[in-house]
């Protein structure tokens, strides 16, 4: 975990109450360039930032969507005063960020890029609403290592849809669902799961969605799901975001937000 002051490089409205912000890291190339190992940050899809916002006491955790050598992209909803103010911030303004936080998705099972296991793997990625952004980083990472994931994106309505094109540009097969049918398939993400061939599952979204996905997916199939909890600190100190698992209590902010499907207690 590092505490950095990041500069807003750009911000745009993506959909209803939904914004994309690109943050510039304090040292260009901080993510991958030849810094000393201690300075170099390694990011996994599913990890998050904890951002201090003017007018809020607690930091606001926001998942990382994408990253380059010197930028981080986040997508967030304006749910309260803090994020509404954030959506009005201008290019060049600064944010106080703790990062990267959480465990992220474990992709070690996919092995080396270009291996046989890669091309044969059939992961299904499911993102619902504010759960879509971490799926993008995950999708990109999988594509980069030679895997062709299938993606289901679920939103409430056409006005809420974002990043469909971005996923398709990565080369992913995208199925869109909206609750009111105003775009894509009418219904929930689970309504789009029938008939899709997949051998592993990665999901992020509201807990009710995750549970429905888990019930629909074949029992015993490998999978990882990212959970949301109200957090105090975001780095394991306050025990505010604890969660029961089959292997004991875990902190969503440190041992999560990604849990193995096999350990989840619904």
């Amino acid at each position, binding site marked *: 975990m590092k505490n950095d002051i990041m500069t807003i490089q750009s911000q745009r409205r993506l959909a209803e109450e939904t914004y994309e912000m690109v943050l510039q890291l304090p040292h260009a190339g901080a993510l991958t360039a030849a810094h000393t190992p201690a300075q170099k940050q390694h990011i996994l899809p599913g990890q998050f930032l904890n951002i*201090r916002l003017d007018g809020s006491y607690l930091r606001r955790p926001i998942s990382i969507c994408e990253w380059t050598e010197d930028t981080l992209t986040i997508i967030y909803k304006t749910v309260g005063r803090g994020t509404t103010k954030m959506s009005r911030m201008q290019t060049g303004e600064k944010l106080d960020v703790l990062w990267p936080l959480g465990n992220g998705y474990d992709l070690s099972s996919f092995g080396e890029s270009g291996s046989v296991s890669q091309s044969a793997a059939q992961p299904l990625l499911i993102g619902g609403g504010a759960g879509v952004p971490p799926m993008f980083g995950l999708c990109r990472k999988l594509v980069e290592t030679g895997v062709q994931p299938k993606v289901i994106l679920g939103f409430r309505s056409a006005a809420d849809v974002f990043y469909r094109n971005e996923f398709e540009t990565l080369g992913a097969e995208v199925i869109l669902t909206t609750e009111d049918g105003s775009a894509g398939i009418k219904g929930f993400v689970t309504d789009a799961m029938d008939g899709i061939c997949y051998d592993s599952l990665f999901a992020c979204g509201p807990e009710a969605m995750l549970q429905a996905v888990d019930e629909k997916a074949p029992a015993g199939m490998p999978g990882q799901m990212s959970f949301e909890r109200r957090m105090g*600190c975001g780095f394991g100190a306050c025990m505010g975001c*604890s969660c*029961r698992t089959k292997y004991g209590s875990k902190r969503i902010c440190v041992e999560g937000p990604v849990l193995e499907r096999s350990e989840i207690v619904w």
Partner: protein
Amino acid sequence: MVRETAPRTVPTTAPDTAVTLCGIEMTNPVMAASGTFGYGREFADLYDIDLLGSFSFKGTTPKPRFGNETPRIAECTEGMLNSVGLQNPGVDAVISEELPALAEVFHKPVMANVCGGCPEDYAEVTEKLEIADAQNEAQRRPQIGWIEVNISCPNVKSGGMVFGTDPKAAASVIRAVRQKTKKPVIAKLSPNVTDITEIGRACEAAGADGLTAINTLLGMRIDLKSRRPVLANTMGGFSGPAVFPVALRAVYQLCRTVDIPVIGCGGIASAENVLEMMMAGAAAVQVGSANLVDPYACKGIIEELPRVMKQYGIKALQELTAQAQVR
């Protein structure tokens, strides 16, 4: 205003931040408050926690506890609610895992925060810690400096605040702990009482060597969309800069009532807050919620102390406590 004219390295003019708490010397009065610093590990990854005066570890019970259901955290204006409910791995795991790990990264006496559902629980935790620490003592200095008795947690149905709002119950817990340890016993008091000095006096009479004031205020928030309490447990403990004036008042009242040292806690977020607490009579301070918002909060406050002391013409922090006592 007194200006900084001499370099900090000249010992004769460097402000003296040292304090003594129940006979134990501390390089500075800043401790992290229980429940905001775990057992130290998360922060030791970030900075050298030997910088701290000390810290009070997570409230520890005889058995492991998951705590309350989530959500356990709510945002407030300049503060937060928590209803964690004393999640901890239990005293046995603390002794076998947490304390040895802590010994690697923290080389000062730590404050052990103990809790339970009945006086016997508090006594059990204290006794186990006392025995374990005595075995340590053979090899090195005792690891535990003080026993902090949490009779003020608002988030548990039995124990906690139930003890801290009644002088007799408070005294019974302190007596139970007192019998099991030779270490200084500190009672951590609740502000959710009509007269905190009555509880403080009862603890002093029962053998407490010091008091921590205050634990969290009982608070609540409702979510406007669901029209339900934000916290699964309905109410929770309110902390953060918002509560500082209440904490300062409690410390001031207690310092004029009891003859044992008082540790000021509640909303401290700056070196200036530390000075103000000590001017109210505190012998040391605990920084709580600030650690959760800024993991470097304690480090920053400690590093700021000498500069702010010079700004206000304070040569030694202990003077402030002493001045407050005779006022």
